[in-house]
């Protein structure tokens, strides 16, 4: 059952959005669900496509090659400094499209809600999602709601899909890195992962680290406008951090990387938190950063465009693509030595001493 609730009349009386909780009946497809959609999702996400009230959105021709993506959001906690699961779901999906150089056009959202979840928190998430979608100019055009029994989910899970259109002639792909290309990073790393960890149980920090969660399609558009023919590929270093992203591209393109640790920006409070927990910021997640591989001739133009954009102010040229049959990501440490930056083996866990 989608968000097609317009034709159903809600139950008598309004939902208690302050103290009420989600019940199994809110996912049953009956009047209770219609009421939940009408009072929570429609006001928060409302737009002309959603208002059609059908089980699908009918969209105008897009005029170009379509880019499509889907993603699931299971973040814990649901609310964190700098964002929440709602805005994160919008940003994550917009960014997955933008990394292909696509202009994101539409999103879908599927909510899986645990019985007993506070309605006030659901409203907060929906409002945040709507706000993020409007700010990005990418409407949520259709959606779905399911309620599962208490204990069968962790509050709320959100699945999204996104559709965008790629400009003619633009071809960004992970297999396009070539030896000699420049590696450009849009800003500081590790902010999102540390923000999430900072509000987990027993890990309160004195300094608040905010997530960098942000939609990057505007930044990408500026980069494309400045130097499209020189752009090889872009990728947002989310889970697994910068290290995983570099290793993924090395594998896809059959190349190595030589990066310089001193040029990779880590905010002092993020570095301090990582130090405390025994984590390496290179492996910590980001939600508002991108890595671009650029032909040498386009480096200045790309950096100029990025630094003129609020989400690329700290953009830096951090290294070079190199020929390497072993596909190693090598790094000159800030200390002057050399090391490789490997894939993470399993989840990065704190050391004991």
């Amino acid at each position, binding site marked *: 059952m989608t968000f097609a609730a317009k034709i159903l009349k809600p139950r008598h009386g309004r939902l208690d959005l302050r103290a009420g909780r989600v019940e199994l009946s809110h996912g049953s497809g009956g009047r209770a669900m219609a009421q939940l959609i009408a009072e929570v999702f429609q006001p928060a996400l409302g737009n002309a496509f959603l208002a059609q009230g059908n089980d699908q959105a009918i969209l105008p021709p897009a005029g170009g090659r379509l880019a499509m993506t889907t993603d699931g959001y299971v973040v814990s906690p649901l609310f964190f400094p700098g964002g929440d699961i709602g805005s994160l779901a919008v940003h994550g999906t917009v960014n997955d499209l933008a990394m292909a150089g696509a202009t994101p056009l539409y999103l879908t959202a599927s909510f899986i809600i645990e019985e007993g979840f506070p309605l006030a928190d659901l409203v907060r998430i929906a409002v945040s999602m709507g706000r993020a979608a409007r700010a990005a100019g990418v409407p949520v055009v259709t959606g779905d709601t399911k309620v599962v029994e208490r204990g069968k989910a962790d509050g709320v899970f959100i699945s999204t899909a996104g559709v965008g259109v790629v400009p003619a002639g633009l071809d960004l792909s992970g297999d396009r890195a070539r030896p000699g290309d420049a590696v450009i990073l849009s800003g500081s790393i590790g902010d999102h992962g540390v923000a999430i960890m900072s509000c987990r*149980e*027993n*890990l309160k920090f004195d300094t608040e680290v905010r997530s960098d969660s942000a939609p990057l399609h505007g930044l990408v558009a500026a980069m494309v406008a400045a130097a499209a023919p020189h752009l090889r590929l872009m990728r947002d270093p989310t889970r697994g951090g910068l290290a995983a992203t570099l290793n993924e591209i090395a594998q896809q393109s059959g190349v190595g990387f030589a990066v310089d640790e*001193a040029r990779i920006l880590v905010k*002092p409070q993020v*570095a*301090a938190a990582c*130090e405390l927990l025994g984590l*390496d910021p290179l492996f910590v997640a980001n939600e508002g950063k991108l890595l671009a591989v650029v032909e040498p001739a386009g480096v200045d133009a790309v950096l100029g465009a990025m630094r003129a954009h609020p989400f690329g102010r700290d953009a830096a040229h951090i290294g070079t693509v190199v020929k390497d049959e*072993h596909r*190693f990501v*090598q790094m*000159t*440490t*800030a*200390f*002057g*030595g*050399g*090391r*490789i930056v*490997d894939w993470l*083996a*399993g989840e990065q*866990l*704190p*050391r*004991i*001493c």
Partner: protein
Amino acid sequence: MKYVDEFRDGALARGIANAIRAEADPARSYRFMEFCGGHTHAIARYGLEDLLPPNVRMIHGPGCPVCVLPVSRIDAAIRLAAEPGVTLCSYGDMMRVPGSDGMSLLKAKAGGADIRMVYSTLDALRIAGEVPHREVVFFAIGFETTTPPTAVAIKMAERQRLANFSVFCNHVLTPAAMRALLTGAGGVPIEGFVGPAHVSTVIGMAPYAFCATEFAKPVVIAGFEPLDVMQAVLMLVRQVNDGRHDIENEYARAVTPAGNRKAQALVAELFEPRAAFEWRGLGSLPLSALTLRPAYARFDAEARFTVETVAAADNPACDCGAILRGLKRPPDCRLFGKVCRPEAPVGACMVSSEGACAAHWSYGRFREHAKANDNTRAETNEQVPA
């Protein structure tokens, strides 16, 4: 970061590296063992080997508590966690370590066991308070550094009259392992130790005296920052050149000669040495681990539950023992990088990121390929680009 960045200054490091190069006698080789996994990690992560001259070589020791815990104790912890009514609390870096048959705490958790990852012993105490109907067992591991927090938790549990809290004690002793290294078959071929940092904040300097008096090996206790390690290496080079073998303290900002007497007294009150304890890669070592004293048996999981420790042999092809003794290097092991990798470790040294093999695999294995490439170029007279 105050008190951190100062010890990561690349320019200062190059200065120390120049001093090491100038003072190291080119006619001899210097082999120093860093006992602690923390040092191994720092050496690999900051690429310190690149800053040392070729005749000064670091040998990675057994000082990683995760690596040295034998399979039988991990199996026992997994069996404990599977007991009905038991909640097992563990530090995060034990969660992935494989026991027998590839089982781990993470896998046991996925299979339904109530296993919680904690950041401190106090988290485990709090959980015990929250679930009074369950038996909460803290999986205690580590050297002298993590023993006092375990002792504090037990004292607090006693004060709070927590009847459902106990400790599966696997605390091990650094000096016993160092002695075993020096007395093992042929002794370990080193000229000195970079001594443990955090361990020494607790036990001080005196426990290493035997290295100097009985074995004529110098020890320089060093912090975990890269400059600390470089400075300790320089101090060791000077001792070797002077024919000295003293216990020196590079980490004076944290280590005092006597250590932390309060922590020592607390540990002595609660714990006593075991007659022998099995170490991964090193075998059974006498008086090398602690157990709770009979007066605290009610907090001892091994006394409260039937904890069966069934001997489980390490893979015979694994060279961990030789690597921990400095007789072999990680790439010399035939399992290294083939069946034994960090995501599926076979031997002790690959288990935690602080183990010698894991550190080499994760940070340094490109050097082997660089060397191989150089050799190939030399054989084919290929020009090496500048």
